[in-house]
């Protein structure tokens, strides 16, 4: 089939989490015949088990399908699925840049949420044509008229004639497909121009090397062409070009302007084909790269250690393998007195960290100890130098520090007025500075805050959910660095300094954090035959203390009827438990102690 450029539709679906993005994507694929019902596995686009379980998209995906419209014409649909979490905002922006339009899915009972807004604004920033779809109209609580009005009021796009659908029940899907044909523009650009493609994702394959996902804006690319990656100047010969079938790669002869597809070119490392880079011809290059490319840097760092020290080489192998497919994951070896050999790893955010840690444990069968995640602080030294601090243990002596800066984000929180007070309170506790407040409706408010990143990386989202009974939604983006009064909080167990438990904290929060940490650790460190002081210190000064009392009695009851095996099992358990402990001085500390301090706020 010959592909006419004006019969191509490149689009994505944007939505707040759980508003039905993936379900709608699946329905579109099903209705256009790409998948028979038998082939349908729920949510085809979310490939990883983890994605399915968490119900969120982690990596970008793309798929091509053909739709025969009511006017009898065949249209090529390229559906690009975008990651659905703030950690991956840059990837989202690049995926959007690869599209010409977006389908906005809004839950017909919940209405506009923080992510809805953030995603719409992001799409509009990329000049995408957005049309809304009201989903879940089969729910008893659905109120499509109200939500349509809300979309018009809040977002300012036409919504009264928006398709009213239920992706789950398969209601109204045809209408969505017709809307895609008529409301999303065909790609512009010309095959006669020099090649200009946007990388929106890449994937490492052990046979093909790196598979580069691209949107072609101008020109044509075929196998054998010499191409150039404009950010790093690397040149390669194209080995294969193709497009995306359902869960597989389908080679084709060429990709030309307006199309979405992939190339391979014996590239070994995903970091050589970075998301956002422009690919052009090495022979006849385009003049300018596409705008918007940037190198994303990790925002959150933590130490990752094997629970069993012998697993260190396995952990390194596993991290290397994960990095093959994840250009934003960084790691370098570090050594902790308490935890032995491990790695300081950098992540885009806490979700990214969670996902990597979970994949390491699940796919590579590793038992991990992770230290408290921290953000990147800027330490300005008295000698005029500046260091970006990713490991609290490396903080210079106080006398060498002139001042420090911490990263802040601008956040948008959507909350119903009922919980407004609670959420404002939370933001204040977390050192937030209010920058705006808008009433979306009578009962819903959009709060804008600047918040220090280190105040939201741990448990802000959980706290937000619990204080609003789930009725608040939240989105943020990096804003920059501001000067702040920061100190390093150290923990001493039985007078021994435990490097793995140190972290940087706002000066005025040090006492509260320190007390809470001591309290938590007290609950996690088993009683020993001697008393164990647990202390929190700032700059050598003890600010909080708890004591794990000495165990004085630990006795087996009688042996019923000479059943020795049962008693022996108890002793074995006692001995086994000991083996899993980390030795800090003469104190045995269980893995759980290191993890417990990650969850300090039990709201």
């Amino acid at each position: 089939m010959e592909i006419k450029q004006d019969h191509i539709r490149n689009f994505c679906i944007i939505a707040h989490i759980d508003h039905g993005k993936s379900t709608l994507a699946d329905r579109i694929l099903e209705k256009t015949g790409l998948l028979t019902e038998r082939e349908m596995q729920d949510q085809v686009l979310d490939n990883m088990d983890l994605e399915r379980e968490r119900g969120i998209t982690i990596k970008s995906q793309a798929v091509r399908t053909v739709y025969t419209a009511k006017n009898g014409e065949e249209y090529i649909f390229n559906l690009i699925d975008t990651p659905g979490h703030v950690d991956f905002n840059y990837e989202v922006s690049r995926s959007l840049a690869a599209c010409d339009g977006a389908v906005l899915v809004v839950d017909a009972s919940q209405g506009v949420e923080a992510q809805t807004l953030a995603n719409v604004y992001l799409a509009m920033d990329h000049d995408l044509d957005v049309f809304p779809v009201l989903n879940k109209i089969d729910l008893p609580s659905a109120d499509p008229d109200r939500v349509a009005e809300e979309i018009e009021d809040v977002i300012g796009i036409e919504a009264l004639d928006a398709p009213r659908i239920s992706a789950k029940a398969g209601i109204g899907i045809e209408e969505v497909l017709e809307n895609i044909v008529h409301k999303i523009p065909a790609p512009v650009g010309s095959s006669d121009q020099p090649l200009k493609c946007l990388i929106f994702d890449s994937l490492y394959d052990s046979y093909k090397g790196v598979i580069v996902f691209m949107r072609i804006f101008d020109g044509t690319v075929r196998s054998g062409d010499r191409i150039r990656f404009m950010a790093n100047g690397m040149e390669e010969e194209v080995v294969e070009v193709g497009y995306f079938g359902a869960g597989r790669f389908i080679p084709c002869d060429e990709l030309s302007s307006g199309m979405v597809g992939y190339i391979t070119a014996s590239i070994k490392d995903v970091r050589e084909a970075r998301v956002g880079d422009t690919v052009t011809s090495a022979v006849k290059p385009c003049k300018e790269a596409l705008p918007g490319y940037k190198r994303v840097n990790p925002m959150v760092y933590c130490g990752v250690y094997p629970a069993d020290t012998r697993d260190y080489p396995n952990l390194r192998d596993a991290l290397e393998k994960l990095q093959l497919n994840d250009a934003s994951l960084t790691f370098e070896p570090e050594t902790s007195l308490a935890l032995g050999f491990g790695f300081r790893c950098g992540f885009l955010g806490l979700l990214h960290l969670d996902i990597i840690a979970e994949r390491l444990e699940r796919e590579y069968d590793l038992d991990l100890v992770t230290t408290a995640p921290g953000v990147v602080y800027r330490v300005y030294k008295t000698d005029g130098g500046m260091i970006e601090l990713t490991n609290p243990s490396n903080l210079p002596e106080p006398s060498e520090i002139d001042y420090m800066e911490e990263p802040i984000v601008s956040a948008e929180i959507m909350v119903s007025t009922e919980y407004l007070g609670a959420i404002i309170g939370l933001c204040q506790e977390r050192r937030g500075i209010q920058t705006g407040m808008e009433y979306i409706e009578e009962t819903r408010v959009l709060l804008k805050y600047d918040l220090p990143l280190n105040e939201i990386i741990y448990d802000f989202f959980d706290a937000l959910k619990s204080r609003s009974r789930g009725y608040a939604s939240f989105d943020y983006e990096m804003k920059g660095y501001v000067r702040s009064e920061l100190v390093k909080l150290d923990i001493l167990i039985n007078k021994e300094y435990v490097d793995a438990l140190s972290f940087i904290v706002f000066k005025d929060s040090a006492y509260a954090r320190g007390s809470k940490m001591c309290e938590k650790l007290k609950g996690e460190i088993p009683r020993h035959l001697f008393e164990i002081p647990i202390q929190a210190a700032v700059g050598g000064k003890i600010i909080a203390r708890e004591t794990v009392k000495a165990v004085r009695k630990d006795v087996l009851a009688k042996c019923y009827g000479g059943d020795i095996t049962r008693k022996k099992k108890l002793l074995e358990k006692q001995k086994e438990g000991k083996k899993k402990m980390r030795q800090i001085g003469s104190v045995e500390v269980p893995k759980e102690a290191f993890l417990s301090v990650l969850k300090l706020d039990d709201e």
Partner: protein
Amino acid sequence: MTNKDKKDIGIYVHIPFCVRKCFYCDFNSQVPPSEDTVFFYTAALLDEIKASAGLLEDRKLSSIYIGGGTPSSIPSSCIGRIIDRISSHIDIDEDTEVTIEANPGTLTELKIKDYVAAGINRVSLGLQSAVEDELKALGRIHTFEDFKKNFDRLYWGGIENISVDVMTSIPYQTQESLIKTLDEVIKLRPQHISAYSLIIEENTPFYDKLRYGLLPLPTEDESYYIYKLAQTYLTQNGYRRYEISNYSLEPGNEGNKEEKDYRCRHNLRYWDRGDYIGFGVSAASLIGDHRFTNTKDLNEYASDPGRIKQEDLVLRPEDAMAEFMFLGLRKTDGIRCADFRESFDTDINEVYGKVMRHHVDRKLAAFSGEDEERRFFLTDTGLDLSNVVMSEYLLY
């Protein structure tokens, strides 16, 4: 073979029935059983004893222990038949210690008469506490009065060796209330007292209550003081602590003018790793280096008591050595180093020298005696922390 050359053996008989389950008990028992169940179970026991006759051949019977559950809850005729069956395969002489566990709420004069006639010479009475509120909280079916009445009946019925169980760290207990319980017990001069700390086991009403914070247990500190108080108080009143939780009336005291050793011979057999054979559902046996356990399923057991001794576990030398230590060290006089050499043909220092020294350095253990009589035992502190200490004698 003369009697003297025969190797000793002990017999345990398990009666898995109770009138009601106590709130702390996770033991495999039927409450309350139907008459038929008791009848079939007894028949099965008789079959098992018969089928095991070979194991009793050329042995000298040192003790029988009928435990449970609540052995006194079933008809005394059943107990009689069981002892009869045993005696048809192995001699029960006047030296043989024959114990039955009894709940004060289930004894009658008639039952006691039958027990004595059957050859029972020791009764272990489960009192647990002399304080009514504490008894109720434990889910016991008897009162303190029931206990006193039956203690007298046993005494006048001719049982000259009575043991009383008391519990520490139980709901509502205080140091004062423990003294009250101990005073009441000591007044009666039983030959033996067991003082166990309550342990909360999973799958018991107590476990659930504890999880919901509804169990009024003494605080950890109070619990420790109660536990130590029991030791001091009993010791001061003429009872010798010979094992972590067991006390016997010392010779020369009122009630033991004849200088008899009232330590429980059957239980000592467990700590000394002497041979014993267990009859009944879930009963355990040790014969040489074999540990057997019967099925825990009552129906399975009753349907085929002849196919006994499931789960035949052959102890490796390192298992046996660890047992030697963690069982022997439960006794206050600990282990005799020469016994280790005799049992394993290895010097104890080669295997445990390092850990023994470590425990001595930390005052958790000590040595006594010289050469052949050299013994190694846990100090009071070591006994208090016996779980920690003993786990270090496991060899893997």
